[in-house]
């Protein structure tokens, strides 16, 4: 239906009553206000898809107001790889007039508009969609009754969607009961009353729009888990052996610290809500100094506040994981929107020469695995490791194969084995392996960790040669990490006309864009960078195989016409073939925006390659 790969039309005269039509995947956009619980419905659909072995991805926007305000939740589910939340929706559920007006253009022509006719008056002349009105609000009040008023209309919509898409009602009701488990009995009862009312809504009105999602054909035998990116990161940290951390609340980072505050005590650990960002990174460094793998995190403005301490962590060579859930900036900016504009801050922020490691997860599943990798690198190289995720990944729900926890889980304990007589905290010929407090030393001398330039023993040293040697030492270990990284794989054509480079959450849309370019006859490949600093070896050879290299990222093209990663790559490889496709509207990339960006560049350079404008 929605998918460009599917030719099956939806809605309109061709529909045959009563016989649900098979579809491969579907994009449903729920538009209402933030207190309507549409995220809850979206999350139910996502989890159901995960349990049904289907692939799923969600997308949401949240108002930054304290309570209320327009909000959407979009869920795309189906068979095969779901790489993005979908450029356009197949079904729009509009709770209010503003939902209808603001989101109608997000609905694909021929799609289904489901609206609450208690609140929405659609334009009767607009014949592009199959419009189905139902009294969602009054139906809910009728079904639930009592003091609940229209609370529960989200569940009514869920029931309606379950009917339309022939969803597995037994699984769905089990999910609803799990979700409200532990709450008063009437909460579950009201939820089910609303759900049933939606499911039983007279079908005549909508029977033209019944669909059936094709059975999934997953090859993996592992069960799927369904969660958002912040959850995956938090659990990844726990699997990596993180037991201590500290932070200060800031959107959209806060949910990670909330989870860790709840989860870590189960594992014998502690997460501290610090008085400010400076204290937060300092607490975490205290735990790191004490011999633990520790974490702090924030969003852009908070990362700026941590920068001085981060400089100390580089100088003192402390293992630390620092998470930055990027949002729109600068300053308070767009706190509930997405941007990838903290890359240069992550790589070069702080004072002095401060080489450190910067990683970025590509999707929700990768949030889990990148936390493990960050832990391994932080320990091995005694260095801070920054993880750059973003608002869209933080709130996006995906299903993925349950990780093999038994094979991955790290049991971390401070290493307090007595150190030998030749122990030095900062040896010139070896990597730093700190002796945490509590460790005895054969020499009877105990080490100091310090932010002053120091000699091998950690004594302050203003010796010019020593500063040069120690600066080199801190740089070379990061270079050694870069040299050890395998070159990333290229998706699509291994050589040809266009290479699209992305990082972070744009992995899915860029992949879909490459797939579409190739369908259109362009020889195109995708190179996705998870390691942003240091860069893996072998990139130059990959770039050389393509005529044009476009770096796709959600930040400004800057004064010189290049986004932040493009700047780094041009500085590193001095290649004029590297150019930028950027955007700054605070929303995730649509696939079409990327293919259009490629087309614009190629037209501007009078390329012989022509790309037909994308049509969905």
């Amino acid at each position, binding site marked *: 239906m929605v998918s460009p790969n599917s030719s099956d039309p939806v809605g309109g005269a061709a529909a045959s009553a009563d016989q649900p039509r098979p579809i491969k995947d579907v994009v449903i956009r729920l538009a209402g206000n933030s207190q309507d619980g549409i995220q809850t419905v979206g999350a139910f659909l996502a989890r159901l898809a995960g*349990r049904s072995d289907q692939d799923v991805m969600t997308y949401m926007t949240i108002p930054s107001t304290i309570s209320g305000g327009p909000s959407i939740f979009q869920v795309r589910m189906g068979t095969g790889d779901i790489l993005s939340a979908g450029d356009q929706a197949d079904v729009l559920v509009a709770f209010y007039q503003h939902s209808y007006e603001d989101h109608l253009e997000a609905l694909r022509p021929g799609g289904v508009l489901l609206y609450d006719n208690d609140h929405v008056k659609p334009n009767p002349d607009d014949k592009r969609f199959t419009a189905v009105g139902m009294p969602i609000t009054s139906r809910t009040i009728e079904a639930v009754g009592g003091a609940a008023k229209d609370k529960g209309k989200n569940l009514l919509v869920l029931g309606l969607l379950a009917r339309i898409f022939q969803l597995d009602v037994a699984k769905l009701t089990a999910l609803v009961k*799990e979700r409200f488990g532990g709450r008063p009995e009437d909460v579950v009862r009201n939820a089910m009353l609303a759900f049933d009312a939606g499911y039983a809504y007279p079908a005549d009105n909508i029977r033209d729009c019944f669909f059936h999602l094709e059975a999934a054909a997953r090859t993996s035998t592992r069960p799927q*888990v369904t*969660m958002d990116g912040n*959850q995956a990161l938090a*659990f990844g940290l*726990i699997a990596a052996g993180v*037991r*201590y951390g*500290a932070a200060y609340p800031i959107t959209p980072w806060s949910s990670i610290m909330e989870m860790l505050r709840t*989860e870590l*005590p*189960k*594992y*014998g*650990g*502690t997460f*501290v809500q*610090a*008085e400010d960002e*400076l*204290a937060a990174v*300092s*607490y*975490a*460094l*205290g*735990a*790191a*100094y*004490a*011999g*633990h793998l*520790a974490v702090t995190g924030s969003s852009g403005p908070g990362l700026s506040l941590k920068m*001085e*301490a981060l*400089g*100390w962590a580089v100088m003192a060579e402390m293992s630390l994981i620092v998470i930055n859930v990027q949002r729109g900036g600068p300053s308070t900016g767009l706190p509930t929107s997405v941007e990838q504009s903290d890359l240069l801050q992550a790589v070069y922020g702080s004072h002095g020469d401060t080489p450190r490691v910067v990683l970025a997860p590509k999707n929700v599943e990768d949030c889990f695995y990148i936390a493990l990798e960050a832990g391994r690198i932080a320990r091995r190289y005694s260095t801070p490791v920054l993880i750059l995720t973003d608002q869209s990944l933080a709130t996006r729900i995906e299903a993925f194969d*349950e990780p093999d*926890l*038994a094979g991955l*889980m790290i*049991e971390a304990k401070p290493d307090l084995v007595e150190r030998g007589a030749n122990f030095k905290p900062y040896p010139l010929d070896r990597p730093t392996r700190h*002796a*945490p*407090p*509590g*460790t*005895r*030393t054969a020499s*009877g*001398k*105990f*080490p*100091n*960790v*310090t*932010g002053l330039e120091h000699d091998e023993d950690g*004594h*302050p040293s203003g010796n010019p040669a020593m500063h040069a040697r120690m600066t080199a030492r801190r740089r070379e270990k990061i270079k050694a990490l870069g040299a050890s990284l395998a070159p990333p794989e290229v998706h699509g054509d291994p050589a040809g006309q266009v290479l699209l480079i992305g990082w972070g959450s744009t992995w899915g849309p860029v992949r879909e864009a490459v797939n579409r370019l190739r369908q259109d006859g362009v020889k195109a490949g995708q190179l996705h960078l998870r390691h942003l600093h240091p860069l893996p070896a072998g990139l130059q050879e990959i770039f050389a195989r393509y005529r044009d290299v476009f770096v796709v990222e959600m930040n400004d093209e800057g004064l010189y016409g290049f986004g932040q990663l493009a700047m780094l790559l041009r500085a590193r490889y001095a290649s004029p073939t590297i150019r930028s496709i950027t955007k700054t509207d605070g929303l995730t990339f649509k696939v079409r925006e990327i293919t259009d960006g490629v087309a614009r560049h190629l037209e501007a350079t009078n390329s012989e390659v022509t790309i037909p404008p994308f049509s969905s």
Partner: protein
Amino acid sequence: MSSTAPTLAPPTNNAAPARPPLTRKALAADHPTWCPGCGDFAVLAAFQRTLEKLQFPQESIVLFAGIGCSSRFPYFVNTHGGHFIHGRALPIAAGVSLSREDLHVFVFGGDGDGFSIGGNHLVHTARKNVRITYIIMDNFVYGLTKKQTSPTSPFGFKTKTDPTGALDQPINPMRALISSGASFVARSHAAQVGHMTEMMERAARHDGFSVVEILSECVEFFPGAFDAANPRKSGAFTLIEEKTHDGSPADASRHDPTDEVAAFHLATRPWPGVFGVFYETDRPTKNRLEADLIARTKEQTAGKSDLQLLQSTFARLR
């Protein structure tokens, strides 16, 4: 003096291999870089004497400091420790304290580090009652950067940043600490090694956030600042007489360190004020409360391993 924390007492396990007593010689490290005559030398001597008395295992002692002359302290004592950034010694030390119950954590610093750039952390570490002993060497001036106004510089004190005299009212450290919720607040003078040692020992044995402010003269940039409290310079070192609860008539007029309001009144005495323990209370530490939270949480998880815990969480996310 209230009961001291059993967890902070030196180990009495007879089965442990005997180790030589901790001496000042074993504690000696780099030679201090302070100016000749600096009050901090005496603070260092008193601290080493305190450690000799406490006999904590040497490897379990951790010293942290921020930035300033006095913040060089960790280099001069042979223990584990670190030299952190300006004003943030308390939160890094709190991270150590909260993640390692086996350690004895001390923080050293000056008035700029503690009351100015680190002022917020002082308030919150006190409020949270993190198990740390904090020794503030207060010299009323920025010494390392060569004579700028400090948050405790007296009104009218001439510095390079206030050439016509300081305009801002100075902080009263005792009042600030008491009202922030510090559970042990004491004051001493660098010319009184015996008194400093006594205050440091009591602070170190206190189960909670304990602070000793020590008036420590900067001979270079504020000479004579604390003569008014130095008997050898015709000053008066007035000690706080603490209640002994012996029922005697004299005891009625003595100070009850558990009385917060009385402590606040003592802190408002005119310069040079009084010395000793202003306030001491037995309040649950964050260390204890977090440990209790862990214990309560673990009771509910019924002895599951870390792996089993995470596996059951993932099972719920299927």
